[in-house]
């Protein structure tokens, strides 16, 4: 592998090829539109899903190859900067792209069944792919400008996708709320960026970092930093920009909920990590602009609010929505536990690894919801009673997701949460770990409610489940297997994550 990887650095292959994953996603999106236009009357669902899945899987493969080959990583000469440092391809961007692509793949495969009786399928798939493209670019964005643009590129299709079920009031309402909060947030982000530009006179992260040392206008800088933080908080569904999340996830088509709560959230963290670590390095920021404390506050509030609100839900999908807010809180530890000269690589890497595992288990959980919706079973815990007796395999998978989300062994979620708390303690923030521990203990309560409903309770009415949708099953089982395999296979994941994270500092 290494020769090819090295080749990417040389002139034999143009450097832009390092963006192949993002490009592939974008092209797939266009291709889907093309199919839609060229195809006589409504194109077959299978073809569209096939193309979308193929594109995302191909992109996933390429990303994986780059990652293994060491493209943009220390082994082959470090990050590849493109277009005047507007974009940069490095280990972290590839790592996140891995998450986006695999989630996208699962989502489109699942959507194959979900969209069976809907129109505008092509739009659905292509919007998904475009959003994924935006996320892939977010991961590589190295300038506040590209950050903003790619973020919008990811967001705009998402708005549409959430409101995809035009006739469904829930979907529309979700889309509206998502859009309005999103619009406000992006305005805040833009204003924040403009303020930072006002202080530093540059948008490229590196130059910003170089320029912020100057103490004058520290207030403006701090204002800008906090507003940027707010913009990212929206993307990651963190307090206080989380309000859209419960409704959006509940109202949106379940595959889209999965997509947003896993991939989109991860994308938010991708930019947040890069921007704050690269543009506002702790060593450089003025004393008054100590954003770590802000993230600590957000992390604690977010995980607590998410878990406590989730504990009292009756609607499984909404419970998952809140729980994904809670998980945003865990992931925020990655930024909250940073210290000047601390084991930052470990902390950030642990957070990234958690997001990867979360990508599997949370996507799987939402796709299970999609499966249940596909069967026309209700959404409350009571409706799930005794589901295991009718659909044992899917129920086993859901059980795995739930326990893994709760952080119980022997599942991936246990290990990633373990390493996350572990590195938080390592960084000296044992109280962050303690809050996280208390929360995940509480989360065990509501996650096990789902398990209890499926396995322990007796069904109120017998389900009429006629179909075993192959796409949904494939996606769910894939996610389940992934969640399981990530326990033994966690070694390379965490090692990669922590190495690539370390290079950011």
């Amino acid at each position, binding site marked *: 592998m290494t020769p090819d990887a090295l080749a990417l650095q040389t002139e034999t292959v143009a450097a832009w090829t390092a963006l192949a994953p993002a490009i592939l996603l974008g092209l797939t999106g266009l291709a889907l539109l093309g199919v839609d236009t060229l195809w006589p009357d409504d194109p077959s669902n299978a073809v569209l899903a096939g193309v979308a899945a193929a594109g995302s899987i191909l992109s996933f493969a390429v990303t994986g190859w780059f990652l293994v080959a060491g493209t943009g990583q220390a082994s082959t000469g470090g990050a590849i900067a493109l277009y005047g440092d507007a974009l940069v391809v490095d280990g972290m961007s590839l790592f996140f792209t891995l998450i986006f692509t695999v989630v996208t793949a699962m989502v489109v495969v699942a959507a194959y069944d979900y969209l069976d009786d809907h129109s505008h399928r092509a739009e659905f798939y292509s919007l998904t792919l475009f959003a994924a493209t935006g996320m892939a670019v977010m991961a590589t964005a190295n300038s506040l*400008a590209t950050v903003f643009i790619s973020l919008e590129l990811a967001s705009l299709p998402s708005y549409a996708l959430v409101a995809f079920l035009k*006739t469904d009031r829930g979907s*529309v309402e979700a889309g509206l709320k998502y859009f*309005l909060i999103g619009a406000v947030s992006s305005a805040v982000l833009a*204003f924040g*960026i*403009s303020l930072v530009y*006002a202080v530093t006179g*540059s*948008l490229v992260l590196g130059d910003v970092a170089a320029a912020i040392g100057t103490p004058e206008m520290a207030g403006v800088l701090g204002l800008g930093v906090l507003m940027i933080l707010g913009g990212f908080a929206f993307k990651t569904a963190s307090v206080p920009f989380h309000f859209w999340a419960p409704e959006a996830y509940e109202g949106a088509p379940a595959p889209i909920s999965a997509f947003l709560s896993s991939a989109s959230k991860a994308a938010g963290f991708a930019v947040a990590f890069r921007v704050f670590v690269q543009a506002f390095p702790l060593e450089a920021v003025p004393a008054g602009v100590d954003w770590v404390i802000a993230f600590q506050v957000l992390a604690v509030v977010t995980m607590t609010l998410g878990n406590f609100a989730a504990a009292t839900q009756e609607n499984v999908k909404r419970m998952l929505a809140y729980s994904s807010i809670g998980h945003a809180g865990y992931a925020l530890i990655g930024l909250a536990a940073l210290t000047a000269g601390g084991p930052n690589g470990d902390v950030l890497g642990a957070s990234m690894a958690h997001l990867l595992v979360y990508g599997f288990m949370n996507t799987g959980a939402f796709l299970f919801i999609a499966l249940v919706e596909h069967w026309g079973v209700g959404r409350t815990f009571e409706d799930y009673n005794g589901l295991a007796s009718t659909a044992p395999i899917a129920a086993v998978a859901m059980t795995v997701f739930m326990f893994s989300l709760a952080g119980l062994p022997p599942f991936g979620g246990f290990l990633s949460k373990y390493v996350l708390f572990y590195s938080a303690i390592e960084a000296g923030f044992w109280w962050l770990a303690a809050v996280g521990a208390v929360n995940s203990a509480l989360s065990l309560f509501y996650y096990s409610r789902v398990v209890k409903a499926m396995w322990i309770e007796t069904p109120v009415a017998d389900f009429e489940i006629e179909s075993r949708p192959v796409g949904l099953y494939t996606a769910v089982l894939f996610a389940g297997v992934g969640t399981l395999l990530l326990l033994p296979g966690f070694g390379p994941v965490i090692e990669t994550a922590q190495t690539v994270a370390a290079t950011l500092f």
Partner: protein
Amino acid sequence: MVPPEYYLLLSAAVFCIGLFGILTRRNALLFLMSVELMLNAANINLVAFSYVWGNITGQTFGLFTMALAAAEVAVGIGIILVLYRSFDGVDVTDATTMRW
């Protein structure tokens, strides 16, 4: 020349006006317009300080922002249309089927 602080104050004022609109207006379209105001507040800064710093980064980004604002409005109008269809109205506070 005009001290840069003035630009900041102006943009802040515009931003706050937009924000005020968002907080007070229940009509989805007015809501959108307020967002536009906030984005333009950002543009003021970008352009002004592009001049102050003597590079065009800010202006370029300002253009991008406008384009994105337009795109956003496009999507927004679409959503507001379906909102109108299913909640027969554009009052954003009507859509409250999901809460808590």
